[in-house]
């Protein structure tokens, strides 16, 4: 319990209440929910909201981390710290094809790699757990194909998303009726924007991975992106130089595919200020969205979050 905290502003309060409502509704209606936990800032907020929703009880479902094996080392350390601190039930899954077939972001390209190590891995983990509902931290403001996403997003038994066949969603009444094998992805943060996320992290004092804050870090420039050069598996290509720069990350994923931004924002206040004057979107640093037009929609149809 947090003490002596100023009350949330009405905007954040409304978003928080809506998210808690969704958490409770899914927990009340489904037999085997699970929460996707990607360790990023949105997941941190999601985790905090889940703790609030079920307080004074524990979170009544496990967390699932799809670990590609290529996450930032600091993310894994942070994840394990959260699990210990909040006594979480965490399931981590890595697609065995990764090591069997040596699937890496360098050898297979971001598209194939993402498909195998994220989308396929997620399907494997969801099947193995027989989960009928999975919470995700996606927001509608993130990307064009998400703008029409429902709060309860219906998935076929093979986890496919059919944008033309989603159920109408009126008021805050959610239809959780599914047949065996079908499932629902539930998005409590649908109506949050990136700034809301940061304001909430600040207001609620939510722990996040330190990579979000600016610091001097080793980087290389590749395909117009600044890539963190800490992991031994990153081999420098011809002409690339490793140098120190003051950078931070707006989103976190697999280190070879996530671009840093040059920034001196070392506090939440500075991050929020930077964001409010930003002229590019947060997904700009992600290789996955740039592959082709409509790439997110395509990945989602295949079962990606």
């Amino acid at each position: 319990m947090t003490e002596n905290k100023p009350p949330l502003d009405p905007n954040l309060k409304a978003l928080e209440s809506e998210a808690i409502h969704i958490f409770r509704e899914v927990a009340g209606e489904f037999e085997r929910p699970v929460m996707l936990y990607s360790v990023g800032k949105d997941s941190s907020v999601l985790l905090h909201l889940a703790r609030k929703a079920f307080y004074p009880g524990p979170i009544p479902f496990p967390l699932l981390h799809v670990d590609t094996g290529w996450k930032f080392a600091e993310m894994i350390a942070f994840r394990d710290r959260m699990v210990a601190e909040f006594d979480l039930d965490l399931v981590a899954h890595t697609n065995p094809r990764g090591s069997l077939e040596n699937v890496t972001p360098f050898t297979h390209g971001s598209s194939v790699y993402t498909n195998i190590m994220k989308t396929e891995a997620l399907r494997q983990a969801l099947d193995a757990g027989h989960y009928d509902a999975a919470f995700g931290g996606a927001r509608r403001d993130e990307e064009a194909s998400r703008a029409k996403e429902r709060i309860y997003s219906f998935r076929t038994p093979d986890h496919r998303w059919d944008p033309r066949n989603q159920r109408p969603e009126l008021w805050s009444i959610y239809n959780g009726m599914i047949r065996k094998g079908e499932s629902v992805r539930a998005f409590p943060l649908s109506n949050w924007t990136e700034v809301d996320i940061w304001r909430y992290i600040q207001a609620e004092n939510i722990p996040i991975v330190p990579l979000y804050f600016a610091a001097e870090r080793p980087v290389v420039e590749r395909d117009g992106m600044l890539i963190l050069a800490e992991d031994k598996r990153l081999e420098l290509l011809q002409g690339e130089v490793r140098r120190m720069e003051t950078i931070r990350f707006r989103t976190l994923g697999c280190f070879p595919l996530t671009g840093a931004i040059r920034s001196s924002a070392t506090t939440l206040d500075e991050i929020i200020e930077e964001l409010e004057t930003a002229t590019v979107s947060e997904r700009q640093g992600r290789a996955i969205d740039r592959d082709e037009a409509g790439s997110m929609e395509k990945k989602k149809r295949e079962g990606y979050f």
Partner: protein
Amino acid sequence: MSANVETAVRSQVQTDAAIRNARPLRLITCGSVDDGKSTLIGRLLWDTKAVKEDQAAALKGQKSIQQNELGLPDFALLLDGLQAEREQGITIDVAYRYFSTDKRSFIVADTPGHEQYTRNMATGASTADLAVLLVDARAGLLEQTRRHATIASLMGIRQFVLAVNKIDLVDYDRSIFEHIAAEFRQLALSLGVTNVTPIPVSALLGENVVHSGHQSMPWYSGPPLIEALELATQRTAQAVGFRLPVQRVSRPNESFRGYQGTVAGGSVKPGDSVVILPSGTVANVRQIVTFDLVRNAAVAGDAITLVLDRPVDVARGDMIASVDAAPVSGLAFDAKLVALSEDAIAPGKRYWLKSSSRRQRVRVEPQSVLDLKSGQWSQTHNLPLNAIGKVHLAFDETAIFDPYEANRETGAFVLIDPDTNNTVAGGMITAKSGRIDGIGSGGKDRVLISLPADTADELLASEAFATLRDHIEIRRVSGQEARAVLDTLD
């Protein structure tokens, strides 16, 4: 010209870390094809900097993208999220857009204007506090405008903004604007909506959207669209009786038992007497628990955990409500429906009805259908896709509602087809049905029993009596009054 506009927009200083001191305003935009709805929304997003440069650049980078005369990206493309739509060049579903100013955040339900998409509009309108209706200044009000206004009012929207767009194309003519505005006020009035703000707008040039259009329209003294939105009010369900639809029972250990849900009306504080429906059991509130602190009150919209002062039987789907302003329980209700599915709503078919956290079986009998063109209701027995109808609902087990007019949370429901699990209708309760067909609701055999007050309370609170609660009329009278009543009966 294009560079100027862009720099002007970009250089506008934005105050940082402003505290939004209101809940997000939810609005819906409606217009006919080519009225400029995409341009208007694009303009709102662009001028409030909700669209970032890489998103615009991605569009500019694509072939076959037309940029408009101002060098701004093609807004329609920016908004059309899905590939399927891009291929067909139409907007097929409700999309949600987000933007904010220093004062407030906004959530726009962007719905397509085609007449067959009543379903999408109803979806977008169900959560909206306000509707922006768009007309082309050259064309004035259309049949579509009437349809959109009718659906918006039916879904409970009580604030309209009329954006008279493309005002630049009629030379900023004041009399044209005023004529359309007057005509629209009449239309709104016929639907019972009095809160109407007409605004002359050029979405393309950005006049009276976010920035003032005073330069071109010195005769207009009202606010630009964004200010009208900042000042709009939200419907709160705080004035009505306390409602807590129970989503979950929390029992982390033997000593704690809390009922979790979001307050759907009124307010509550420790010590309040509440009734649990449908059982009819009465209890008092002992504690309001949240993660942050034990609170001394909760109001509509708050997600809380309620602890009662005695062990009672409460399950998901039950409603905890104020004892002295309880919702209506019954086996038959009248409602209005919007049919959302290709399969018509068929008479006598049994559906699942979900309202708040409660799901139960219902039989639906369509009575009449609304002709959106004339505003007339005519008799019918089934409701095809996009039809708006009046229906009669018959339940096997007690249902609990407020009229939608009084409470949008507890008066709304969806119908789910048990064969497909699809959501096939959205509905709004109008009243408890006057028809006599539930068990025991017959009007004739009424019995008057008079009891001492505390005995009466005890009896009413008992579980055995609970199912009958609905059929009992309670009048608290003094002994003297009671005697007078009894005397008149003999």
